[in-house]
């Protein structure tokens, strides 16, 4: 298993390199110029050109890419064109809020979606099942920003229970940290909860029709034991898969959620960097996200062996 994990980790390097080359090329051919944004609206073309030169943006593609790769190999993600801050510092500043948002959303999803899916499967065809699946369709259909505005209006503006925006690090207290994350996590989690609940229901329905479940029932085992000990464990592989794949959804959704709730996370940093053509920052974030994806996939594969001992690598 350890050698498998190591092999998979090593295999991430070419994946990340290809993704980086793709993104770098895409940005290079895309219209837009960071020097123009930096120089401001009143700048002359000469000013813009001088800024381009000072940033090295006038150099050929291969030289720019080569120099970036060289820096990466030396552990340097480069410096932001706009802020003059190291990209690693900027990512470091933004990692905490995004991770916090993802963790809270993930926990919320598991706590809410899995039981809902199990209950829906258990009560398949009943009003409860239809209500849960109706909620799932509703949650899946509503855009994150619509849910976000609704939540902010109700719970922040009208009831004044929670703040509208911002992020407080965990080091400043659990409640200040959590109160800023509740509304964004619910907004972001709606789609995710709906997805996981539907998959859980489908997987559970399949398992609940198996012979060993009938045997367990015949032996007189209680509903809880059947559902959560026998059935859920055997339905876990697709659930784990969708939870893992859903992390991609979370990253995408975080971009919108972080804007709506003014959370200074990686999503907002990505959008800002793309709009300004801040190439080093975009490249750094893409590398990080690529690594996260690969890592999540690896964790899913490893988790399979835990929930299903028949799986071996």
């Amino acid at each position, binding site marked *: 298993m350890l050698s498998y994990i190591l092999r998979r980790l090593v295999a991430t390097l070419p994946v990340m390199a290809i993704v980086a080359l793709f993104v770098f090329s895409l940005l290079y051919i895309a*219209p*837009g*110029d*960071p020097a*123009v*944004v*930096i*120089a*401001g*609206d*009143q700048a*002359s*073309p000469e*000013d*813009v050109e*001088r*800024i381009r*030169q*000072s940033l090295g943006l006038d150099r050929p593609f291969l030289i720019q890419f080569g120099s970036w790769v060289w820096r990466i190999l030396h552990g340097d993600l480069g410096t*932001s064109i*706009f*802020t*003059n*801050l190291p990209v690693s510092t*900027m990512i470091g*500043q*933004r990692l905490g809020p995004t991770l916090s948002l993802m963790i809270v959303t993930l926990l919320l999803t598991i706590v809410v979606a899995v039981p809902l899916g199990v209950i829906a499967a258990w009560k398949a065809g009943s009003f409860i099942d239809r209500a849960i699946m109706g909620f799932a369709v509703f949650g899946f259909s509503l855009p994150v920003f619509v849910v976000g*505005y609704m939540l*902010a*209006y109700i719970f*922040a*503006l009208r*009831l*004044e*229970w*929670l*703040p*509208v*925006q*911002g992020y407080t690090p*965990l080091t*400043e*207290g*659990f*409640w*200040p940290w*959590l*109160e800023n994350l509740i509304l964004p996590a619910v907004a972001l989690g709606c789609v995710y909860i709906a997805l996981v609940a539907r998959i859980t229901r489908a997987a559970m329905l399949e398992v609940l029709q198996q012979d060993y479940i009938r045997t367990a029932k015949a032996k007189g085992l209680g509903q809880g034991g059947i559902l959560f000990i026998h059935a859920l464990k055997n339905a876990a592989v697709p659930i784990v898969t969708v939870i893992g794949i859903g992390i991609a959804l979370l990253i995408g959704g975080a971009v919108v959620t972080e*804007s*709506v*709730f*003014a959370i*200074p996370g990686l999503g*907002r*940093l990505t*959008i*800002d960097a793309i*709009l*300004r*053509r801040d190439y080093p920052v975009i490249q750094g974030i893409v590398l990080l996200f690529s690594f996260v994806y690969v890592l999540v996939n690896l964790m899913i594969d490893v988790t399979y062996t835990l929930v299903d001992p028949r799986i071996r690598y």
Partner: protein
Amino acid sequence: MDRRSVLKGLAGASGLALTGGLSAPAIAQGAAARTLRFVPQANLANFDPIWGTQYVVRNAAAMVWDTLYGIDSSFQPQRQMVESEEVTDDGTTWTFKLRPGLKFHDGEPVRSKDVVASLNRWAARDPMGLMLKAIQQELTAVDDRTFKWVLKQPYPKMLFALGKNNSPCAFIMPERIAQTDPFKQISDYVGSGPLKFVKGEWVPGAKAVFEKFTDYVPRQEKPSWLAGGKQVMIDRVEWVIMPDPATAAAALQNGEVDWWENPIADLVPVLKNNKNISVDIGDPLGNIGSFRMNFLYPPFNNVKARRAVLMALSQEDYMRSIVGDDNSLWKALPSFFTPDTPLYTELGGDILKGKRDLNAAKKLLAESGYSGEPVTCLVAQDQPITKAMGDVTADLLKKLGMNVDFVATDWGTVGARRALKTPPGQGGWNMFHTWHAGADCVNPAPYTAIRANGDKAWFGWPTSEATEKEVTSWFEAKNLDEEKAAIGRLNKAAMDDVVYAPTGFFLSYTAWRKNVSGVAKGPVPLFWGVSKSA
């Protein structure tokens, strides 16, 4: 006990277990009252007011770096860091003396050598600075508090140049920082202004923090825009960046922020209905909407085509697309200059007045020889103001019978593409939309957009000898009457040749919580004189 306290208590109890006892620090009421949370117009993505010239950078820089002079609300340059100045009778030698006791945030005194280095860096990037540099004989430090600027010919607008508030302003930095190449960004943000920048708390895109500089010695005069006594009444200003206007509005209503620089027009009625919020015009100099036509290629290389568009356009359509139904927020503008400022004139602006004549415009367009070629209209749709104006223009051009190639893209792309001088079919363009801060349009000195010196002019590269002649006349004017006469002629010449198309004058609101007092109108957000109660 309210519901929020119950939630807080429950979370606190569970949090205690999870974090090993970490808890929220109690923020004293007084500390909260001494911190002003401000939502700026845009993200402070960099912080070098000479290298990058965005307004938001200028606004932050005005807190941290002081200027030798400051323009007051009468548009007059007043002494700021300078104690006195002398100019020789021939107008070529200026000797300035600094105020005693000026200090940088690192504790070092402000010396003449710092000023000389700062002015050199500024002059390499600023249009007025470049003019000064072109006629400069020497700029030297005489002693620690005195410096001398010797010119080859008089420059009557010297004090305006040193005090003007359009980017880049002549901010004074320590010599070690000011020696940075003007095309490279500084990373040390030490100034001598009334507030210090807290670099360690800067999260670009999210937060910028400024603290009161306790060693700052304000002037004794009443504050007026960037002139006078800059008395800071709060300990700390936090800029909270909010990309989403709805969130900013909600945060202001909730009391999570204290002041929002420019709420969008759609949300102003909501804010006005809140008894805890004050709403007023922020910058009385407002903005001038514009679109520029490319003088290099057909159809707009022909003045008749440009005049046809001007003759047909309705400024009301443009302004309503930006500000909606609020009539107090806009004015028709048969001029290139900011209304209600000393040099404002409507001379020559008749083409923008009266009933719009589409038929006459069509006739004029036909006379220009327009034969249906596509007109590439660039629009930055990520900027609501330009997008709205672009839609109106597209409709106008179609009504005129023009073949519109409407290119709606992002600002980064428009900014890059408008710099291309290639023909429209080969990556170039025929027109693009923007707007100019009214503060930049009070006279020709900061007004890049009015210049019409061909290749050296701003995008669109207008050529109008008559316009340029009057720009020179204004620079050489010796008194207000001469200035006014020159501006009148300039306005007429620029209107005749259609240097660009003004789409109207518009204002925007600013909004703040009622426990904040002292918010003053001005071309930049002014933090001195502002206080906050609990």
